[in-house]
């Protein structure tokens, strides 16, 4: 059932067995999974059905280095559906190595292994509408599978692994009808969590205090409580509640908010293929279920171990959009249309180059001299992206010159100095705002540098083409767009030792018996994989755990 705080009188108390705060990917997944269970469930959402500026502004905060990280109210949404209302849809599971303790990655090692999460991935895939849980070309396309580059072989890179794309599914729009049904789950909109009230010992949540922007108050009492508010907000809520614990809930050992990771990503170099253009396939293919899939170059686990570097994947990419030297009508059209493109997808349309009047004129010239190319691309985007429910995931431009760049996405090392902390300012509800101090390590640069060296070596050894890039520019490219937007990882990390982690293997706070965290905040390491699929899988795992716990009561 979908309710609003306006449905309740002021100072109303509401009870449920399980109380979830935050109706995004994790919160909605848990609620859906608990529909029909014996527990009563309350799902609180700060926002409403659409974006509301005043509510969204509650996310505003500070960034220590604005060049390295986007403002905190960007790349996340405070409304029913959360950030699934704007996400890109890329899905892939973590790999077994991501869960392991790796001596070359300090702070690595989850208290669970891949097979603990694996049983939940198939349903997570279904909820994300990413088709079958099949992430290799063989499993998806069978004998019809094609290589990315015919003739490319490598002892260290695989090319048969896929990323799959969600519609991208807006969980509010897609599953709203289920949440609205008459059952054991109630969703309450416009309820902002402002206080987590602990018992005298500080080891048990007694109740939650929630407020609306109009000043109405609500109290929620339950058996178990889940923070499913996203990686930044989970840290904020734990740190801001200091009544019982002066450093914040679960923060006795100063871990909450630390180890904040995104991903290390960028675009670099130029690869000129020597093979025919038909031998290079960098686009999307539709799986039998109608899901867009794309192959990538994945650094094998054996190579990661041998080199002592993090996980890394690469894709063939078009040249940098901002530089009109690419002479592509499509890329120039995108550059010129950037005011019409949502902020979250604009980042690569900004840069030091391409901004002068001369560059702007060259972009216009590119469009004018390629009208057919520009018109056909526009039609493709209107039909397959704007009007389609399953949207074409990104811009794909096949180079007639067989010339591409490399787009990479790599694991970021856990780093205690990279953190989310509280700012001195407060929001409209009196809650301290956050301050983001995202940092990266030399090891992150080394992962990308070494992985690129191996990739360049194997392109050359295969005889399919040569990758040219300036190794001195790797760090520049990593930081060109700053931390990868929207991936907020590690701020309430999972572990067995309370001195170095916030939650245990079941996502429960070490320090508080009935408080859990759902979402990427609990990932101790980031992997190269985009986090949403694993957020959903872990949310399903947590829902199953809570059901089991309730059954034992």
């Amino acid at each position, binding site marked *: 059932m979908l309710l609003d705080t306006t449905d309740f009188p002021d100072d109303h108390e509401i009870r449920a067995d399980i109380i979830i705060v935050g109706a995004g990917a994790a919160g909605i997944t848990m609620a859906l999974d608990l529909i029909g269970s014996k527990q009563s469930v309350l799902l609180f959402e700060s926002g409403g059905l659409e974006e509301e500026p005043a509510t969204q502004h509650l996310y505003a905060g500070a960034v220590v280095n604005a060049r390295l990280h986007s403002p905190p109210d960007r790349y996340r949404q405070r409304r029913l559906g959360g950030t699934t209302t704007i996400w890109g849809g890329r899905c892939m599971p973590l790999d077994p190595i991501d869960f392991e303790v790796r001596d070359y990655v300090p702070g690595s090692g989850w208290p669970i292994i891949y097979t603990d999460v694996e049983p939940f991935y198939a349903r997570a895939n279904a909820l994300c*509408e990413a088709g079958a849980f099949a992430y290799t070309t063989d499993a998806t396309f069978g004998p019809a599978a094609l290589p990315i580059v015919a003739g490319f072989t490598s002892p260290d890179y695989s090319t048969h692994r896929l990323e799959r794309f969600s*519609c991208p599914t807006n969980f509010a*729009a*897609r*599953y*709203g*009808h*289920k949440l609205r*049904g008459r059952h054991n789950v109630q969703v309450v909109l416009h309820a902002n969590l402002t206080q987590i009230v602990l018992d005298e010992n500080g080891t048990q949540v007694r109740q939650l205090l929630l407020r609306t922007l109009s000043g109405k108050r609500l109290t929620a009492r339950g058996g178990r409580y889940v923070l499913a508010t996203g990686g930044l907000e989970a840290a904020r809520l734990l740190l801001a509640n200091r009544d019982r614990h002066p450093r914040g809930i679960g923060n006795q050992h100063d871990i909450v908010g630390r180890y904040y990771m995104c991903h290390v990503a960028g675009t670099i170099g130029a690869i000129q293929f020597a093979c025919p253009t038909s031998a290079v396939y960098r686009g999307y293919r*539709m*799986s*039998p*279920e*109608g*899901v867009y899939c794309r192959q990538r170059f994945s650094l094998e686990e054996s190579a990661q171990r041998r080199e002592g570097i993090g996980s890394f994947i690469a894709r063939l990419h078009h040249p940098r959009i901002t530089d009109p030297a690419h002479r592509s009508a499509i890329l120039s059209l995108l550059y010129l249309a950037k005011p019409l493109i949502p902020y979250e997808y604009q980042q690569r349309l900004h840069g030091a180059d391409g901004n002068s009047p001369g560059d702007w004129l060259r972009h216009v010239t590119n469009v004018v001299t390629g009208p057919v190319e520009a018109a056909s691309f526009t039609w493709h985007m209107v039909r397959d992206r704007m*009007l*389609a*429910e*399953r949207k074409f995931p990104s811009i794909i431009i096949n180079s007639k010159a067989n010339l591409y760049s490399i787009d990479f996405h790599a694991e970021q090392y856990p780093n205690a100095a990279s953190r989310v902390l509280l700012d001195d300012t407060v929001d409209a509800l009196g809650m301290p705002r956050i301050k983001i101090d995202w940092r990266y390590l030399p090891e992150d640069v080394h992962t990308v540098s070494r992985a690129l060296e191996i990739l360049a070596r194997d392109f050359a050894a295969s005889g399919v083409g040569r990758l040219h890039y300036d190794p001195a520019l790797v760090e520049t490219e990593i930081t060109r767009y700053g931390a990868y937007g929207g991936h907020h990882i590690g701020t309430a990390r999972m572990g067995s030792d309370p001195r170095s982690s916030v939650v245990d293997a079941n996502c429960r706070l070490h320090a508080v018996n009935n408080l859990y965290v759902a979402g990427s905040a609990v990932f101790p390491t980031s992997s190269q994989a985009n986090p949403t699929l694993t957020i959903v899988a872990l949310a399903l795992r947590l829902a199953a755990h809570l059901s089991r716990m309730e059954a034992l009561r």
Partner: protein
Amino acid sequence: MIREKILVNGAASPLGRRVLDALRANQHINAVAADRLNREALRSAVRDADILINATMGSAAAISLAAKRLFEALRGEAPSKRLVHVSSMTVYGNAIGQCNETTLPVEPLGKYASAHIAAETEAKGFSQMVILRPGVEYGPGCEAWSGRVAAWLAHRRIGDLGAGGDGYCNLIFIDDLVRAVLAAMRSPAAGRVFNVAMAGPPTWNEYLMAYAIALGATPVRRMTRRRWTLETTFLAPPLKVAELTVGRSPFIARQLPPPIPPSFRHLCAQEIRLDVTAAEEILGLNWTPLIAGLRAAATAYGLVVRR
């Protein structure tokens, strides 16, 4: 040798045909089709029969008429005659959630549901009756749920329906339904009603996706809400009128896309799940795995796709 006499009403339906074939394979049974008998002949056939099966499918009018004829003939006969009456899950109307045989219908009820409810009410007047409420019959010979769906999938007119396909598809493979009828003939459970559908049914999206893949009608198309509304609300009525008028010509019929009725859209979204525990425990039924059933359906209707 005295052969048991079994009368099958609705023998022209996909189910009736298969039941008749199954019965005729048994040399100890004399199975008779009742459909073409006039009133007197039917009365006589009913009198002679040991067991009666009403397997009529089709429109609301056809169901009402066939039931009325059969039950009129049966009235006054020995109460020991077993009557197996095949009804439909539509008797639950707009119910959602888990439905067992005691679940009451939820309004509004369409003509089809009302016809089945009326027929069931009549059937319950016979003490030796067993009523079966099948879900969605699929498999070879099931034009409604396998044949026309294959045509829609082949022409990419349906596919992944998003939220519109979250309803449960309470499938019953046609051979399982035949087995259910045969089990009901012999069951001591006189006076009982049974839901018959596979346990743990897929959603409509899952069914359509898996069927499309079995047919080779891939990649499956994601339908926009706009397109789905257009098909089922605005295109369906004129296509139906065309089918009933100019569509009588075989040449035009081949060109006409089959309509996707609004009732189908409603069904795909209805989250009703049949509880089949009683059928499993009392009739001893088990269910053909979905993948095997779809393979059989795809073999039967694959030509639609190839064409």
